[in-house]
Each structure stands twice: as structure tokens, then as C-alpha cells.
């Protein structure tokens, strides 16, 4: 007879262990993020010691739940398993149903409830022995098994039985490391930069600059899609969109052609800092990587940094090669969108020979011709803010 058992998902967290007195706070934020990721799916989340267990959901949605929770930063590993009454016969029934069909295996029991009549070594031996007898195609290998069967005897008279462990996104729960403003272009780098900072627990907002009518609606849609993918890791985010068309036109009109990118980036930083202050963000995050393109030389960064007065500019990709960035973009699922051909900055304004090592005094001299405050003000008049939710 099939005994009563319930499908559950076990979520183990990382790093939170390290946080001493703050542990309660981190756990609370993490639990909230897990709950947010499961919006729209019926479930109950319980927290026995050292892990979270998702219960009372429809079995057909188990994979979807794992897929969503896998992306929540702070998640170390997950398993789909069964919660059963903690007696050897029930446990054995469940092990039978999830055991591999052939190959080598190992049973790993853990006895949280010291009242359980067998200790963990005895459980391993008993269940392992029964499995060998039940299926002659199976062999024990305690050192490098192909399959593992886990039995976790809990304190409340239940046991968790599972066989697979899925790796989670790792990192720290979003919201435990402050709030940052990500400059999100349509390219490959900036979503990866955002991912890496969010993984350290930072809540993200994103800021996108467009130059409509010189760029098109598809470029904007692409950025919204990138924000949507990122938000599946961060539990939603706000996307701010600002037009820099008039700034590009003014630079084009009044400044040397080769200064376009250098000057434009300074405007972007000014707008970002002001928006960050308005929205409570504590830093600016960019996808710059040292020396990758002309504007990302140390001189270029010096020039754009010089306008930011009161907060750090985080550049998590500064030491990455393009191939490393692409690899990560593929992993987090933004690459395919990033390589769509819509440009976020029309080539109409791209100089043929951009300045590679701008000297700050020359930049400042060129900028003299522009009404900096007025142009920034005008940019803010175009500000739109969208609430991006995960898919």
C-alpha cells in the first residue's frame, strides 16, 4: 500500500550563516524574496531549522517553483523531495519510488531527531541493503556514487526524502546590501553588471538613456525586456527612461566631434547621480570594463567620474574580458536579447575617431560651450518610470 506522502521543495541558503547577529534580518529578507518569487503560485513556506521548505503546492508546478527559486539570490541549493511520516517502512516506500534504475548509489541519512530508533549509519545500512536486494542493477559506491539518496529525519516526526540537489544562484538576499542605480544600455555588459551587484544583495533600479527619434521603439522594448530578465533575479525593479536627444544635438552642434562620447557620458553620470539621490539609491553601477572601447579607458572613466560628487560608481566588470562577460550573459539569460540589432545610441552621432584618452582640462574647456544645468534639467523633463515585474 502507498503510504501518505507530500511533495515538497527544500531550499538551502548560503552566506547568511556568516552574518552573526544580523542573521535574523537576513533570513527575513530572504524569506520575503522567496515568497515574492512565488507570487501567483499556491504554496506554504515553512522554516524548520537551517532551511526553508515549500509545501502544499500543486505537484505539477514543482519544476516551475524550483526554476523561480533557483534565481533568488541567497539560494545555495534546492531539492524536490517528499515529506513522509518518519518510520522506516514509509521511508522505504518513498526511497523505492525515487531510487535510480541502475548504476552506483549512496544513501546519506541525517538524524535531526535523536529519538528516532536508528542512528544515521544504521539508516544508511538498512535502506542501502534493501535497495541492493530490491534492484540487482544497483551497486553501492560510497566514494563517487552516480546517484545519491538523502533521508533527513526531522524533529517533528516527519522525514524528508530526496535524491537530487539543484544549484541555486548563490549570493546574498537582494535588499540586504542597499540600493543602487544601474545604467542599463541595450548591450551585453550592463545587465551582467547589474546581476553581479544584485547577487551581492543590492536592490537595483535601472536607468536607460535613449535618443528618440534617432533610435527606435524596438531599442526601448529591448531594454525593457532586459530589465524583465534581471528582475526575475531581483524580484521586480523600477526602470527609469530619460531622453538625451537634445544633449547629443547640443554636443553635435557646439563641441568637437571626437568629444561626443566623453561629454555624453558625463551628462549621463550627472543625470544618474541626481536621479539616484531622488530615489534613494546609494551608488551608480555601470557595465564598463577597462579599455574595452574608447570611452572605457582609465582616462575616460576619470572624465566621467569627475562629475559624480557624492556616491561611488561601481564597475563590477572592470577586470573582465569580453568573453567572460558573454559567458555570464548567456548564463543569466540576457545574451540573446542583448545582441538584437537595435542600437541604443544612433550611429548618426558616433564620431569617426572618438577620443581614447581625453584630458580632463580639454573636456572641461569643450563643455564650457554647453548649458550643462539647462540640458540636465531638460533631460529630467523627459523622465519616465516603469515598474518592471518578472515574467
Amino acid at each position: 500500500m502507498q503510504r501518505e506522502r507530500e511533495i515538497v521543495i527544500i531550499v538551502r541558503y548560503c552566506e547568511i550563516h556568516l552574518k552573526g547577529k544580523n542573521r535574523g534580518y537576513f533570513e527575513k529578507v530572504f524569506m520575503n524574496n522567496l515568497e515574492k518569487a512565488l507570487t501567483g503560485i499556491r504554496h506554504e513556506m515553512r522554516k524548520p531549522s537551517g532551511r526553508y521548505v515549500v509545501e502544499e503546492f500543486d505537484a505539477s508546478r514543482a519544476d516551475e517553483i524550483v526554476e523561480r527559486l533557483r534565481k533568488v539570490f541567497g539560494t545555495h541549493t534546492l531539492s524536490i523531495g517528499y515529506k513522509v511520516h518518519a518510520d522506516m517502512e514509509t521511508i522505504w516506500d518513498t526511497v523505492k519510488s525515487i531510487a535510480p534504475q541502475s548504476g552506483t548509489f549512496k544513501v546519506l541519512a541525517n538524524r535531526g531527531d535523536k529519538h528516532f530508533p536508528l542512528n544515521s549509519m544504521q539508516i544508511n545500512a538498512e535502506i542501502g541493503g534493501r535497495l541492493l536486494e530490491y534492484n540487482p542493477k544497483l551497486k553501492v559506491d560510497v566514494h563517487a556514487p552516480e546517484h545519491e539518496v538523502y533521508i533527513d529525519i526531522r524533529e517533528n516526526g516527519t522525514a524528508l526524502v530526496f535524491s537530487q540537489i539543484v544549484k541555486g544562484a548563490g549570493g546574498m538576499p537582494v535588499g540586504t546590501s542597499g540600493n543602487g542605480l544601474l545604467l542599463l544600455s541595450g548591450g551585453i555588459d550592463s545587465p551582467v553588471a547589474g546581476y553581479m551587484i544584485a547577487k551581492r544583495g543590492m536592490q537595483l533600479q535601472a536607468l536607460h538613456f535613449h535618443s528618440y527619434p534617432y533610435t527606435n521603439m524596438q531599442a526601448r522594448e529591448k531594454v525593457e525586456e532586459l530589465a524583465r530578465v534581471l528582475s526575475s533575479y531581483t524580484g521586480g525593479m523600477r526602470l527609469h527612461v530619460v531622453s538625451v536627444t537634445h544633449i547629443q544635438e547640443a554636443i553635435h552642434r557646439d563641441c568637437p566631434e571626437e568629444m561626443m562620447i566623453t561629454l555624453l557620458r558625463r551628462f549621463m553620470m550627472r543625470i544618474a547621480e541626481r536621479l539616484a539621490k531622488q530615489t534613494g539609491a546609494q551608488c551608480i553601477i555601470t557595465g564598463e570594463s577597462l579599455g574595452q572601447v574608447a570611452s572605457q579607458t582609465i582616462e575616460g572613466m576619470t572624465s566621467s567620474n569627475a562629475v559624480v560628487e557624492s556616491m561611488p560608481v561601481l564597475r563590477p566588470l572592470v577586470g573582465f574580458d569580453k568573453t567572460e562577460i558573454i559567458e555570464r550573459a548567456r548564463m543569466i539569460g540576457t545574451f540573446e536579447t542583448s545582441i538584437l540589432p537595435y542600437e541604443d545610441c544612433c550611429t548618426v552621432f558616433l564620431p569617426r575617431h572618438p577620443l581614447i584618452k581625453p584630458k580632463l582640462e580639454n573636456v572641461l574647456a569643450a563643455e564650457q560651450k554647453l548649458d550643462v544645468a539647462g540640458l540636465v534639467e531638460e533631460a529630467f523633463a523627459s523622465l519616465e518610470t516603469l515598474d518592471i515585474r518578472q515574467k
Partner: protein
Amino acid sequence: MIYLDNAATTAPDADAVQAAAKYLQSDFFNPSALYKEGFEVHKEVEGARRRILSYVAPVGGYELIFTGSGSEADNQVLFSCPNHGNIVITGGEHAAVYNAAKELARRGMDVRIAGLNADGSVNEQELFGLVDKNTVLVSVIHVNNETGAINDIASLASHVKEIAPASVFHSDGVQAFGKIPFTLSGKIDLYTISAHKIGGVRGVAALIRRKGARLHPLIFGGGQENGLRSGTENTFAIKQFEFAAEHKIASLSKDFARVKELNLLVRGELDPEIFEILSSSSASPYILSVAAKGLRGEVLLHMLNDAGVLVGTGSACSSKNRYSRVILACGVGESRADGVLRISFSANNTESEVREAVSIINKNARALAGRMR
């Protein structure tokens, strides 16, 4: 809003929509069904088939196969070719023919592409030079969808058949049907028409086939359309197509003259300092292709969009497919190809709105030119 992108699609004929609405509702039946209700709908579909066919082909020699789109019809023609011999198309073909031919080339077929004259029509001598006795298909677009250039397909087909009597001659007539006076002649084997360019809805088009011309199905299934295009008939769209086509054909000459006037008006009023007219004076009046010197067509398009004028463009800001293949094939250089706008009319456009549109186009183009120095 002034809509001048009618070659992309045009507003559905509202009377035709209303007249056909019952096939979405009370008369929803499957025309293949054996009860009376289904059979009644079947007869209606057959009526639509006969009448649409009569608008483009002489009685007797041709039949009509409904398809789901003009692109599908074009693909069916290309993929009906045997896998030997060669195929000749032109550089001015719609993507549905051009990219299907490219796929056949990738599979090892000998595909030959004839060059274009400056107005977008095919270079006839070059075309004839490519055809030989092994040619299995020649496909020449009737009215080019970017420049409006008209190819004399009846004469081309006759000449091609002298060189390659066993070849099949196809023409994509999507921008011609219901717009320019034309009836199929005996040397043309296959002809594509589409509903949504003449007031029909999207989701139905047709392939006109000279009886016996080589054609194989792309879609297999319940055997509808004589086994050439399976799939339950889109009866609403088919009937609406019929009614829209009926209206178009009835007013074809009158509309042609009116649209010609609108076309001439735009040609005359566009600022010659900025715009160069690419379409020749003998082109279909429904399509007018112009190049704005030194400007990006897509940027101008966005500005016009904000000013309430909707036009098409021959270029895009995207780095892939930035320039129109057809415009480049006309011998227009990349710098000019960047600034191409396609203005396409419908008989419903009024003179006053077209005048207003031209003035908005001039104003915005001048403003953009000023900003670009």
C-alpha cells in the same frame, strides 16, 4: 493621423468586413462538413474563388488557391521546383521570393539573380541572359513594393518561354492586384495576390495558377484547396477578400487616376533641396520612393510619426539589414539609401491631407537637416 504607408497594409474595407461578419458568427460552419450548413458555406467559398479569379484572369484557363499569406503563396511556388536545373529571380523580388530562393541555393540549387534598372524594374536583357533551357522557374515581381516600378510580366513571360519552354513563370502581384489595370495572359503560370493590401484582412491571400502548371503543397492535411493547401478555410477572411476586391475592381480606373494626382502632388511639392525622387514616372502611382539627402530615413520617420504622418522607410537604424537590398540594387549608394522614405497611397487619402503631409515632411526634413549641419 495621416496614413501614407498603404503598401505595408491598408485599412480594411469596413463594408466588406460587415458583409462577411456572419461567417465569423452565425455561419461559422466548416465548409468541408457534410450537413447543409457546411455545404452552404462551401458554396460561398467557391463563389468567392470564382469571382476573385475573374478579376485577374480570363475565364477557363486558370484556377485560384487560397493561402494564408502572400509570403506563403510565393514560398509554395519556389519550393515546388524540382531539385535540378536553375531558378532565375530578380534583385527586386519581395523577401518572400528572395529569401525562399536563398534557402534553395543553400540546399544546392542554382539560383540566378537578375539586376535592376535605376527605377527598380528588372534589367530585361540581363534576365534573358540568365535563362536557359534548364531553367525550371522564373519569378519576376509585378509591381516592386519599394519603388513601385512595374515589370511588363506578360512580355517577359513570352520571351522567357521562347528560351525555356518547360519553365514555370511566376509573378508576385501583391502590389499590383486591385491597383493597376491588368489581366493574366497565357504565358504566366502562377501569380500571387493578397487581401490586406486592397482592403482585405490579413490571413488570406491567393495563388492564381494556370491549369496544369507545376505546383506542390507546402502544407499537408485534410486536402482542402484540391490538396494544394490543407487547413480549414478562413471563410470570413475569404468572403471579406471577395467583397473588398469587388469594390476595388469596380473603382480601379477612377482610383488609379485619383492616386496618380496625389502622387504627382507629392512629387511636385517635396523640397527638391532635400528630396530626390527615386520612383520613375511610369511606376505604380500607389508607391513613391524618395531619398532625403544626408538624412536617416528612420529618424525622419520617427519625427513624422510624432507629427502625425505615418510613412514607410527603405532603411532601418538597426545594424543588420540597415539598407534596403532593393534600393541598393537600383544603384543607389549607401549614403542616399540611408535616407529613403516610402510614401504609399490609398484611394481613401484626400488631397488636403496629402498636402498637409507634404508640408509636415518638408518641415521636419529641413529641421533634421539643420541639426545635422
